[in-house]
Structures are given as structure tokens and as C-alpha cells.
């Protein structure tokens, strides 16, 4: 009985705090994405600007480690029984990727374009070798190209 109570408390805390944190995080992501819209990020390897010279090129990268809350982990384990889309993990990975992209852009605010962007995800932390997803790291990196004015 005590165990069950403990478990339910954990789920309740996970649900309340996790949902709130996610909402706040998404709000800040939207805000910063809007602010950085002027800087295009492309996966192409070259950009052609016939009339302008390239002033500089440098590597930029951004990363974020994000973990899932207890409630969502529970939901995902339920989902494992029936199969189908695991929505709770979708939002987790989405947040990590977008946060990493934003951080990469913030490193190159003066650049004209960021070319050859790659995004990678890897699991780290305690559960990395086990089945469950503990926390994951998203890393985005690319080459920031600045054109001469």
C-alpha cells in the first residue's frame, strides 16, 4: 500500500511539474525561434552568392540534454503494451532538437547563413545501457558563413 502511494505521488509530481516545465520551455522556444528567423539554416553544403565575397567561415554547435518526467515515462511504458505512437517521447525529442538548433544559431548571430547543419541524438546518463530512455542529448552543428557587406 505504501509503495503504491509513493508511486502515485511520484507520478503526480511528474505530471504537474513536468507539464508546467514543458509549457514554459515551448513558450521560450517559440520566442527565441522568432527572434532568430532572419538566420537561415540549411543542410546544403554550399551557398552561391555570385556578387558577394565570403568573409569568414567557422564551426558552430549547440547542444541540450533533456530528460523525461516520471509521468510520461509511465505513459510510455503503458504504450509499450498496445503499441502505436509514443507522443510523450515525441515532445521530449522535439524540445531537445529545437533547443540545440536555437543554441547553435545563438553562437552565430552575425552570420549570413549556416550551411551543412547536422543534428544528432544520443542517449547518455545512467540508463544509457539499459532499455529505458533516461535522458538524451541533442547536438546541432554546422558551418556559419559570413558574407562581406
Amino acid at each position, binding site marked *: 500500500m505504501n509503495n503504491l502511494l509513493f508511486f502515485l505521488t*511520484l507520478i503526480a*509530481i*511528474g505530471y504537474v*511539474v*513536468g507539464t508546467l*516545465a*514543458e509549457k514554459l*520551455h515551448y513558450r521560450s522556444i517559440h520566442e527565441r525561434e522568432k527572434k532568430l528567423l532572419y538566420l537561415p539554416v540549411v543542410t546544403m*553544403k*554550399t551557398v552561391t552568392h555570385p556578387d558577394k*565575397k*565570403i*568573409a*569568414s*567561415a*567557422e*564551426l558552430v*554547435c549547440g*547542444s*541540450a*540534454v*533533456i*530528460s*523525461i*518526467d*516520471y509521468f*510520461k515515462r509511465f505513459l510510455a511504458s503503458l504504450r509499450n503494451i498496445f503499441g502505436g505512437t509514443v507522443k510523450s517521447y515525441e515532445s*521530449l525529442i522535439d524540445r531537445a532538437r529545437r*533547443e540545440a538548433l536555437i543554441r547553435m544559431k545563438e553562437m552565430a548571430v552575425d552570420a549570413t547563413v549556416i*550551411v*551543412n547543419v*547536422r543534428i*544528432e541524438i*544520443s*542517449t*547518455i*546518463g*545512467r540508463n*544509457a*545501457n539499459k532499455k529505458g530512455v*533516461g*535522458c538524451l*542529448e541533442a*547536438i546541432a*552543428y*554546422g*558551418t556559419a*558563413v559570413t558574407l562581406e557587406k
Partner: protein
Amino acid sequence: MIITNIETVPGKTIVEHFGLVSGSTIRAKHVGRDLMAGLKNLVGGELKGYTQLLNESRQQAIGRMIEQARQLGANAIVNVRFSTSSVAQGAAELYAYGTAVHIE
């Protein structure tokens, strides 16, 4: 040292190739941070300690790669890639590799 992750350095010509250079580092966080991360696992969200740790390690891996390139006499590294893998509980390996070149 110019570092890019495309095959060339835009606006410059490559005159000499030196081959592969790489740098790696394996880092673990101290127990306190691990404990905090464990707590954070309950409510979800970003693990700032780990983000910072991985950023520092990545900088170190890049630093080692640059050091190697410098010894070869290169002044730029092109086609840089990163990879992360977890080797043990709570420890992560950060690996950066690329091609050292000489540009005009």
C-alpha cells in the same frame, strides 16, 4: 585555425592535405551532479549540469584535435564530425574528427 564541417573552406583554396586528425575525451560528472540529475529525471526538463559538462568536453575534444592539426602544420580543419557515446554509467565519450588541410 579555421574549422568547418563542409569539404572546403568557403572563399579559400586548399593547397595541401594532411589527413585525418581527431580528438577525444571521456568525462564523468561528480556524484552531486549525478544525484541532481536523478532528481531532475523525476520532473523532466533540461539537465543543465550535463549540458554544461558535454559542452566543456566537446570544447576539449576540439582543442585536442586542433593541437594535433597544429603539429602537422595545418592551418584549417575541414569536414569535422562529432560523435557521442556512453562508455560506462554516467560517463560519456566525446569524439571530434576531421581532415587537416593547409589553405592559402
